[in-house]
């Protein structure tokens, strides 16, 4: 299961499983139904790289991120961050580790506390973790953080509702940076923003990565943005890893039929290109994670499925160096 040279791996996720019980267990007993949000996912992130995690809604990409952040307790599996398995830590130890793993959320409107000013939001984590114990120095540091994310120092006294969407997302990024993390989980950080602002934020994230040597897990559904920002890309479908490889390989030569369909579904802003494109439009919809199909979870929608796909769950195996695919036909 070693996916990369052990020395430069910052985070390794091994056989991560997260099942949510729903209903059931009530008056009439019966085993509660289980949503298999994440079902045996493994990957590693190297220090300083960006791993894109893509898939459609309900594929488990966000839950994977939340498990790494320990916002959800994994049902089973390991989350090894800088050599320590986070799932075995005590609450006190977790609180310390959290400094090093931060998160940027999708919705810049609901991810900032409406009752706190920008200054308070940035000050608090530094105070709590004792990163900058002295109050005056902290105030200075807050201004620095604002400058780093491209905001004016005069914003410290503002409340979130006084800011535009792009500005709020910058505050969210500054808050994530306040604890000096080494890994940031970016959960759809640009998909709620206006198109003209998205590029600003993507550039900001890239610049910050260079400046502070950050590692990103970039969770998104927009394949064009993921291609732009990621070094490697993992594609998830219905709680499972479908394909994981280098950016270039994935976009030039996708091996999993789902990845191929996903790529061909992305609209390109050019009518001429659109007219020339060969597209595979997938039939059907993503099945419910409550009752995933047997065998390969993708087989009911797969254009190249054979009988064997209905029986065996395909391993996410390495077909080429650094290119893993969960498809027996790849």
């Amino acid at each position: 299961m070693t996916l990369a040279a052990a020395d430069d791996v910052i985070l390794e996720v091994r056989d991560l499983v997260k099942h949510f019980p729903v209903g059931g267990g009530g008056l009439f007993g019966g085993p509660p139904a289980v949503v298999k949000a994440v079902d045996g996912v493994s990957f590693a992130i190297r220090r300083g790289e960006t791993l894109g995690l893509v898939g459609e809604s309900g594929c488990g990409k966000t839950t994977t991120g939340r498990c790494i952040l320990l916002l959800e307790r994994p049902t089973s599996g390991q989350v090894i961050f800088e050599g320590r398995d986070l799932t075995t830590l005590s609450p006190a130890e977790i609180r310390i580790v959290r400094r090093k793993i931060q998160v940027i959320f999708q919705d810049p409107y609901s991810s900032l506390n409406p009752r706190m000013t920008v200054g308070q939001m940035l000050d608090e984590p530094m105070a709590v973790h004792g990163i900058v114990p002295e109050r005056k120095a902290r105030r200075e540091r807050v201004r620095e953080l604002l400058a780093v994310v491209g905001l004016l120092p005069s914003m410290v006294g503002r409340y979130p509702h006084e800011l535009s969407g792009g500005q709020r997302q910058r505050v969210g990024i500054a808050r994530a940076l306040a604890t000096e993390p080494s890994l940031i989980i970016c959960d759809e950080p640009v998909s709620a923003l206006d198109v003209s602002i998205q590029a600003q934020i993507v550039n900001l994230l890239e610049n910050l990565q260079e400046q502070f040597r950050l590692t990103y897990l970039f969770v998104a559904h927009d394949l064009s943005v993921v291609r732009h920002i990621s070094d490697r890309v993992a594609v998830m479908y219905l709680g499972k890893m479908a394909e994981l490889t280098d950016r270039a390989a994935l976009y030039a030569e996708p091996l999993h039929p789902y990845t191929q369909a996903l790529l061909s579904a992305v609209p390109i802003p050019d009518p001429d290109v659109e007219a020339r494109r060969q597209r595979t439009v997938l039939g059907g919809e993503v099945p419910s994670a409550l009752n995933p199909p047997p065998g390969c979870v993708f087989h009911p929608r797969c254009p190249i499925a054979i009988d064997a796909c209905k029986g065996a769950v395909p391993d996410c195996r390495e077909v080429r160096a650094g290119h893993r695919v969960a498809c027996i036909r790849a």
Partner: protein
Amino acid sequence: MNDRVSSGALLDVRDLRTEFTTGGGVVRAVDGVSWDVRAGETVALVGESGCGKSVSALSIMGLVARPAGRVAGGQILFKGRDLLELPEDDMRRIRGREIAMVFQEPMTSLNPVLTVGRQITEACEIHLGHTEAQARARAIEVLRLVGIPDAERRLRQYPHQFSGGMRQRLMIAIALSCSPDLILADEPTTALDVTIQAQILDLMKELSRSFGAATLIITHNLGVVARYADRVNVMYAGRIVERGTAREIYANPRHPYTLGLLRSVPRLDEPKRERLDPIQGQPPDLTRLPRGCAFAPRCAFAIERCRAEAPPLQSVGGSHLSACWVAQDLPQRSALSPQPSGDGEEIPSSRAQRGISR
């Protein structure tokens, strides 16, 4: 507006002004906008949140929320009649019957306590005077048309028993049930996954062709527009800044905002760029618009005149219009796109532009 073929237009919006009174002052959400939709064609209104695209649609449907909002001026000619002059009763007959709407949120636009069948048949009974049996037959027919299998059983189900994509199909089925002449689709695929988006767009395109219905599609997604629309209106801060056929707009954008939007989006069919080229600054505050061109504060090509005087929408070649004083001097889009050698190298022109803008 010399491009209007007054006889051929199904919907002809002339100098529409819609205002909202807010705590911060009067917001001109739609500020003197003119455009038209001809029978059977697909027209797009593209822009970001707050540009006035959705308010335009609500104005047409007569659904602008009062008392905060009101249509302050202009005409909305639908088949020659001014919808703004029509009494509410007549308007109600047009809504749903002749102009149908498909909303963004298929989750919240369906009534959760009514069966799906009831939500389709209701419109047919009201607008077409169908009997219950006729309406049911019609409902089954449209469900089949939008590709919902097992229509008879599905009619008895409730919206929560449908997935997101299926619900959007339902919305389209409801819109089609009375064979409208015009469908207003407000961000019809935004809430859907990419693979489902493709299905729905293909479906809408095919259906509007076979039904001969015109479609007005309102979206922020440039990719959707490229695949789908015949003509495109780009809106910014309540005004149309550029208009043309999809090909004109994408191949040869003549407004810095359109140009900026196209350049800021990473494209799968182009080599990866070192950095994206964003549009600078923040979206405009509609209560405090600048005197001249609303885009001037964010524009890399702005000249003195832009800050003093708002440019009119004028032809830059045939039916292609742009509201920009320097429309003819803008660089070509292709000149700004990174060429094959560009992988890993920042494009010089983008750096130059960054320098210009403060």
